[in-house]
């Protein structure tokens, strides 16, 4: 079970990394495209927490 959660969080971390990169790229090419609907700060807060849990 512990291994399952670890692997899942690791995959989540990779997916969140990709999401941050994609959303940031979209926001750069067209300001407001993402921020109008979704606050990237939540992602930026959640992503390192997942990363820390994975490392620990």
């Amino acid at each position, binding site marked *: 079970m512990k291994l399952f959660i670890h692997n899942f969080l690791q*995959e989540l971390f*990779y997916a*969140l990394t*990709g999401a941050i990169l994609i*959303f940031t790229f*979209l926001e750069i090419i067209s300001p407001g*495209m993402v921020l109008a609907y*979704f606050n990237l700060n939540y992602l930026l807060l959640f992503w390192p927490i997942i990363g820390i849990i994975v490392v620990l």
Partner: protein
Amino acid sequence: MPKRVLIIIRIFLWLAAVMAAGWFMYMKIVPSGKISYTYNFDQPGYFIGKLTPADRVVAARGETQIKGDPAYFSLAVPRRFEKARVTVKFKNTTDFPVLELGILNDKVAWSYDLKPLQNKVVDQLALVWPVVNGADGSRLIQRDKKYDTIEKFLSNLPPYQEIGLYDYKLDHEFLLDKYAPTPEIKIYNCNFRGAYQFYTYIKNEDLNYSFDFNDLNLNADNDPVDIKVYSAAGLIYTRHVADDAAADSERQTSFKIPNLPEGVYRVSFVANDDIVSKTISSQQSQFSLINKVWLGEGGETARVLYSNSRLLSAQTINPASLGKIEVGQEIIDLKETYRQFSLKTASQPVAIKLAKPDIILSGDGVFAFSEQSLLDPRLKNIDGNLDINQEQINYILTAYQSPAVDGEWYEATADFDLTKAYQEKSKYQFLISLPGLKAEEANAGMLAIKEIKVDLSGTSLIKKLKKYFGR
């Protein structure tokens, strides 16, 4: 954990991220060409900005109260649209009867295209006077029913003095009986600051005006000047004078248009507040400034203007210009800078005696340097300053529709052409106007806005692609 399960989870998570990105792009492109945004003041919105300025607006639970006129909000759009339908849910319990919504059309002239949301004068009259409805949604409200249809009214108009209009353009011929052109050139040492418009009149003569103006260069922006001349049919002439940083600050421009039919013409001098028109020269004797004029510093200190305005306002940004202004037998006391002081005139026309320069005068009529050159071809507008009985208005023609009632709230809709509106960084500026409402005065009642909804429509992606590929 089996490798297959891991791959499924990986695919699911990445698909979710890509689908989210796809959704953001879809909402940006708006392939259907139609999208709606709603702002109900519960939480900050991205597309519809909050109402400003802060000193005229009070946020309350689920609504915003407007204490002073006007209030502004912005509309951010994801891409270009052609039309905006704005629906406002509001409650107006003040004594001020006319509520309007406008979109900024010209940033230099600061002109808004205003559309009605509510006109209590028309609403109340429609309850007690007979109403004839037109096929196009317009209404004729008559004191005594004499016309069965609007078409009959338009083909057999009563005297113009008996007609009032609201949100309606009625083409009518305005000719002066005793006008005769004079050869001598009139020179107005006016010192008008910024943009202004005026009416003039010609009969068997060229329409010609010459403007000497100064560029104060107080701000670093470009200071171009645009002159536009309108007949009753529309724009007939335009001239652009570009800003030239290398040239002298004193500049001149003029126009001369021959072979025009007799009648009233409107001249619009579009410039920002860095431009001061020192003198205006013309053979035309009729010269009436429309609605607003900023008499700048310099030139004649004491001067007299005449106006047919029913409500007159004065303001100054110069502390040296504070003081009393005689308006007929009454006084407007300018006690503070940047604050507008208003007065209802007892009779019209009225003489306005200015002892100091740098005053901004505004009103619902026109201003002239002599009573004889007062020229206002417009029919009376039905607003809070017009006394229907005193002015002997017997007919009101309007395209305005009363707002719908939703409990204690009203809901009104206004359509705007976005292709003609001014936009900056994909944002449009809107204004909510309730003339008479002042934040610094105690007002009976209040104006509350509960919701603003904007329906945008434009070219769909398919049409755009078809147009691009030339099918």
